[in-house]
């Protein structure tokens, strides 16, 4: 199977991850589109026979980091502009909304690890390669992300309960 066919097959997974990562559909699809275009431009860097999925998620990670950086650069100009309306949330269920909110409040690097492990069910080695970080960092980010998510879904600050134990 050639790369183009596999690329098309992977779009739903890219969309799912992007949707969870950025919190709304329109932005997620923009991210996927940028990723696909970047992937085409960089396809010569992909080594045939290696894991195309991992490579694509690496491309998406880099595109996402650049987009976030660019958005942050103009945030300071934003004093009088109203926030962009949150899109796509009405059609999603309550659980998605709560999870979205909680996931969006995780630090970006923890969020990426959590979603690659949970949604993509990548091994820790794959996550480390995809994000270009050591495996120990994957484990600590995963652990912190899970604890924060748990605390948010329970409505209490992380580890507060442990501190209160006398």
């Amino acid at each position, binding site marked *: 199977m050639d790369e183009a066919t596999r*690329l*098309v097959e992977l779009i*739903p997974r890219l969309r*799912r991850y992007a949707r969870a990562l950025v919190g709304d559909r329109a932005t997620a*699809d923009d991210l996927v589109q940028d990723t696909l275009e970047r992937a085409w431009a960089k396809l010569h860097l992909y080594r045939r026979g290696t894991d195309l999925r991992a490579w694509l998620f690496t491309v998406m990670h880099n595109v996402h980091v650049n987009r976030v950086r660019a958005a942050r650069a103009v945030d300071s100009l934003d004093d009088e*502009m109203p926030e962009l309306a949150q899109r796509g949330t009405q059609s999603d269920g309550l*659980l*998605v909304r709560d999870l979205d909110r909680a996931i969006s409040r995780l630090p970006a690097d923890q969020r990426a690890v959590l979603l690659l492990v*949970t949604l993509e069910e990548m091994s820790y080695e794959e996550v480390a390669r995809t994000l270009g970080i050591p495996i120990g960092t994957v484990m600590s980010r995963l652990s912190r992300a899970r604890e924060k998510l748990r605390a948010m879904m329970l409505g209490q600050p992380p580890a507060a309960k442990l501190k209160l134990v006398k």
Partner: protein
Amino acid sequence: MSDQPITEADLQAYVDGRLPEERYKAVEAWLATRPEESERIAAYRRLAHEVRSAYETMLSEPVPPRLAHAASRRGQWRRAAAVAGWIALGIAIGGPAGWHVRPERTVTQAVPDPAVFARRAAVAHATYSPEVRHPVEVGADDEQHLVNWLSKRLGVKVRAPKLDDAGMSLVGGRLLPGENGPVAQFMYQSQNGRRLTLYVRTEASRNRETAFRYARENNVGVFYWIDREVGYALASADLSREELLRLANLVYKQLES
């Protein structure tokens, strides 16, 4: 072996079902005597399941056409789209004025990206500069708002250069769709109604710089250049090449980052 201490990494791998059988049993035994830890790990498993089911529908949704296109034969698709857009505009606005579209050239030959850029700027100029009542979306009287809005949408700091000394005053600006995202267009006008537009887009590769290039698309002259992350094209149907070059120099000096 199972007498090794249970680490946090073991617990995470337990949640993800990534432990070898023996280790898995060791963790289970360890958790059995620790209700708080056991509760915490159960919550992680529940959350993982919830996260998966929350976004599961994304896998069965039909892929939006724009993404399918981006994934397959990107080059052909983008060229075809550019040509289709150009032909449509040629028919819509250029046709009666006798513009000549040469699809044989654009279809058979890969058009270098900068040429597409100049053409898009020319088309945008030809589309909006004849407008009497709605040449811009946001007027120059609200310049700060205009600039903030366009900067926000493009994701880079955008400024409207001051060309009053050269006899061109800012009319305002608008947001346009581009190949790689939103594009900004500023419009200027002289006292006798000659118009000039500055087309601003973000560049995919951020480290390029080019010299001024000139292109003429139908009756629209365009000077265009790339300054790292931003591409600029200054277009006018009313100015000579020399006048346009002088203005391009002014714009370049003011916007140099």
